[in-house]
């Protein structure tokens, strides 16, 4: 009988201590259990993101499955110099979700092949810690500080899967205006989040 609180599965526990990057490398070497651990870590965030974008459980579950299939298939191409594992995996999930909602639109331009290509979601390592520490409410405050038209453009793009043409049509704005709203909004968001990060108490594991 194991002592209470002892890890029930030593092998699994060992995997759980590995970084996302290590797990991706293990997955690239064919280790399915490494992918299973990544699933445990990210299924909730990916499904939440997919639900927010697609608003449909069956579609969102397909998105999660497709995302992990894509992660598995391409794990050997993950490059830790370019992106954190988390950002890379979530960019894949985001892209699958956006692709799913765009396919529902009769006017959407679809990609010509079956392998959607998400853009880089790449940021300096420092943001890894920031995004772990900031909670949703804090970022929501930062979002609320944006000019409403900037926030709307960003949210329509990221959470509704709209392209710049969709957003321009929806908001009755020229394309150039949509571009600059998105850019200025993201820059402001970054600045606001950085300021909040600085105001957080020093990171303390025990806190």
């Amino acid at each position, binding site marked *: 009988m194991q002592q209470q609180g002892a890890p029930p599965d030593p092998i699994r526990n060992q995997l759980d201590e590995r970084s996302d990057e*290590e797990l991706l*490398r293990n997955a690239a*070497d064919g*280790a*399915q259990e490494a*992918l299973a651990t990544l*699933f445990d870590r990210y299924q*909730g965030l990916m*499904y*939440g993101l997919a639900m*927010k974008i697609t608003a449909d459980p069956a579609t969102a*579950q397909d998105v*999660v*499955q497709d995302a992990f299939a894509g*992660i*598995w*298939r*391409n*794990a*050997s*191409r*993950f*490059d830790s*110099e*370019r992106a954190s594992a988390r950002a*890379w995996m*979530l960019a*894949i999930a985001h892209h699958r979700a956006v692709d799913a909602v765009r396919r529902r639109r009769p006017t959407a*331009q*679809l*990609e*010509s092949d079956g*392998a959607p*290509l*998400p*853009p*880089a*979601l*790449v*940021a300096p390592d420092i*943001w890894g810690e920031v*995004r772990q520490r*900031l909670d*949703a409410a804090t*970022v*929501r405050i930062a*979002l609320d500080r944006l000019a409403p038209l900037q926030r709307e453009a960003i949210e329509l*793009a*990221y959470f509704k899967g709209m*392209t*710049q043409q969709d*957003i321009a049509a929806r908001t009755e704005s020229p394309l150039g205006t949509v*571009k600059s709203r*998105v*850019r200025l*909004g*993201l*820059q402001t968001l*970054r600045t606001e*989040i950085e300021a909040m990060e600085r105001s957080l108490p020093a990171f303390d594991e025990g806190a």
Partner: protein
Amino acid sequence: MERVNVTCHDIDELAGLYVLDALEPAEMASVSAHLQECPDPHPLFAELAAGTIGLLATVERLDTPLAMKDRVMAAVAVIPQGPRPRACRHGSRGAATDDGAVTRADTRADTATCDGAAACDGAAPALDGTAAARDGSTAGSHLLAAPGGDTGCRRR
């Protein structure tokens, strides 16, 4: 897919929409290709991507149904993995050992020297961390690194 020609000036205008994955597919492909080919850093992309990461923090986690994990793992079990990029002698990816450990120092040191190594499939030039991840399907490839395209960029 028809590629739209984008210059360094255009590309920074598209950066926000790019990091939000909100460009039309042809534009998305053009920007990704430009980032791969262009010798100039485009730091705006990393800057704006950091804003995007903030958006993720507003997403509420939602557990998938319990059967989901089995479904995913069953699907994965029959999916062949993509070809492993050939080991890059420039060392930019780092060499995975049998136990999967990779020396971090190895992955850092020589990235820049991979630039222009046509046969190296290990990692493309770092582009200040802004190059496309793109589902991994072309990331880490020098396929697009050959200069000569009209990117409108200042050359080194």
